[in-house]
């Protein structure tokens, strides 16, 4: 079973196991949807949000000229999502917007979105966004007899007309229910409001607090909205993850999974599942592993470009050193390399590697090598994934190293970890990025088993293990598998010298290697 082509079945199984539903979208996160997305004549007209990832899972954006409800508990990012939709509409798609806020004054909201790099005030001054703060204070209002909310409609109409709004955000209409007693009037007025928004032809985003057992407190908005997006902010094992799900979207297909999202200094980004169609381009080009003797074991040429490599072994067997050789070699060739270290800080990593003759510092200074350290527990699993996506999209490396992937298990279950790594491997393959993962096998478990079960996902699997010979311990390295090349079946002695890794043949075994030249 240690041959070259023994894994296709395993991959098929893991795909059909149902952990990850096959996604229809082969595009990746970074694609600029507005540029690449083909306009489908038969599809519902959609208003792109410009938010990375969201346009993919909605297949083009929110329903144009119709109301969309964004609901969720407190602090899940409803207002920010709505505001970003409006601001990006005004700045990127030339669609002016009206912002009707019931909870925060325009000034407060401007402050909030400024932290995401959006200048609301400037857009207001430029006549691209109109803000109306509607305050409903119950203590100041007495009710007697019949009334309706015509005043609200007039104000909405005014705000829309002021800037010629194509988009409108109402945040949060539930405040109305807190301000007035007559629920019957409010419910019928709310229905009229949705009709009004449709008649005006504006793409509306309405936010709503999550209620008990229903998506909103009133249990009404979700039925009259054409699209409902549920935001969630959950904490598992003290680590928080934000997720979103499209609950409904009338008249169109959409992604139905829960998608993790991130709110950072640049606003929202949603992470769709990457394409699982396994139809990415492959390269015949080979890249050196940085260790000549290892290249020799791999058909004399090294790894395939764009393939994924797993280095597994027990503690202290030199996995990081092996990874560092590859990073060094990639950077030396002048290609960009992203090194994600989850155990060591960049400074410590560089110091330790200097002891085996690998100096990464010049390349870090030159900018071809980027070292990024963080604790796996810093974010939830998906958040890490989103971050890797962002870093890769921005830095555009030729190789990505993750050292070690096994640490993610500490933050999540093995199943989730495998799902995440599958996405990651897929994402990197699609971009023709060579990926190298190190994996710490815990002592006691079979060395050929990886906890996260990613072995079937990778193309080349190197195993480093301790070997006891007589009264000494030595390290041995062998190629467990390497797809698409006749690789060596030898076990080589793995020696860390001040000049780097050396792979020697064990005494007495010389000449027996299969591909020995």
């Amino acid at each position, binding site marked *: 079973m240690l041959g070259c082509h023994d894994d296709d079945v395993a991959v098929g199984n893991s795909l059909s196991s149902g952990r990850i539903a096959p996604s229809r979208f082969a595009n990746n996160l970074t694609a600029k949807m507005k540029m690449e997305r083909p306009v489908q004549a038969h599809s519902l007209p959609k208003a792109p949000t410009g938010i990375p990832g969201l346009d993919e899972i909605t297949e083009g954006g929110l329903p144009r000229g119709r109301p969309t409800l964004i609901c969720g508990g407190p602090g899940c990012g409803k207002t920010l999502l709505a505001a970003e939709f409006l601001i990006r509409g005004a700045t990127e798609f030339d669609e002016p917007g009206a912002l009707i806020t019931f909870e925060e004054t325009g000034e407060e909201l401007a402050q909030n979105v400024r932290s995401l790099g959006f200048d609301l005030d400037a857009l207001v001054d430029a006549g691209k966004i109109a803000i*109306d703060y*509607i*305050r*409903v*204070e119950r203590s*100041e*209002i*007495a*009710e*007697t*007899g*019949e*009334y*309706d*909310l*015509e*005043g*609200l409609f*007039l*104000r909405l*109409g*005014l705000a829309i007309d002021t800037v010629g709004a194509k988009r409108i955000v109402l945040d949060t209409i539930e405040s*109305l229910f807190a*301000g*007035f007693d007559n629920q019957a009037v409010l419910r019928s007025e709310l229905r009229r409001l949705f009709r009004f928004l449709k008649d005006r032809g504006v793409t509306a985003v309405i936010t709503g607090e999550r209620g008990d057992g229903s998506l909103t407190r009133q249990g009404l908005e979700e039925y009259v909205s054409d699209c409902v997006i549920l935001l969630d902010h959950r904490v598992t094992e003290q680590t928080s993850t934000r997720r979103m799900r499209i609950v409904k979207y009338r008249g169109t297909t959409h992604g139905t999974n829960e998608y993790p999202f991130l709110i950072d200094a640049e606003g929202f980004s949603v992470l769709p599942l990457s394409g699982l169609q396994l139809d990415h381009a492959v390269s015949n080009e080979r890249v050196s592993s940085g260790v000549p003797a290892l290249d020799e074991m791999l058909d004399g040429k090294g790894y395939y470009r764009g393939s994924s490599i797993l280095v597994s072994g027990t503690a202290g067997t030199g996995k990081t050193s092996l990874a560092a050789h590859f990073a060094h070699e990639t950077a030396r060739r002048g290609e960009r390399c992203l090194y994600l270290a989850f155990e060591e800080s960049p400074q410590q990593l560089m110091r330790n590697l200097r002891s085996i003759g690998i100096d990464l510092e010049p390349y870090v200074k030159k900018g071809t090598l980027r070292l990024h350290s963080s604790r796996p527990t810093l974010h939830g699993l998906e958040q890490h994934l989103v971050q890797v996506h962002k870093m890769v999209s921005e830095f555009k490396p030729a190789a990505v190293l993750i050292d070690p992937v096994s640490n993610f298990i500490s933050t999540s279950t093995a199943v989730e970890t495998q799902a995440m790594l599958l996405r990651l491997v897929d994402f990197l393959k699609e971009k023709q990025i060579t990926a190298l993962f190190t994996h710490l096998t815990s002592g006691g478990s079979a060395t050929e088993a990886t906890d996260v079960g990613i072995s079937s996902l990778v193309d080349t699997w190197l195993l480093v293990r301790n070997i006891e010979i007589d009264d000494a311990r030595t390290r041995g390295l062998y190629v467990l598998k390497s797809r698409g090349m006749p690789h060596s079946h030898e076990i080589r002695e793995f020696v860390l010298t001040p000049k780097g890794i050396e792979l020697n043949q064990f005494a007495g075994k010389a000449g027996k290697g299969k591909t020995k030249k």
Partner: protein
Amino acid sequence: MTPANGTAGEKWNLRLYTAGQSPKSLAALDNLKRVCEEHLPGRYSIEVVDLLKNPRLAKDDQIVAIPTLVRKLPEPLRRIVGDLSDTERTLVGLQLRQIK
């Protein structure tokens, strides 16, 4: 009956927000006039603001519901929404009568 709030001779400044000549708006104006004649004879002024003609004014007094009656004077500002058909509640809302 003595007004619960305000001394005699105090000037009442009332503003009624309407949207066109809707039945509710007309009823509100009729009811308001009747209440004022009865309780504030000679010392009130009613200003009717039609938001259909001038929607910008809705923002200043935070008008959402129609019709809305705003008591500008005497302070503090009070808002009463509805057609004022319930005279008792109107009086309480205007603080012309304490809640019993």
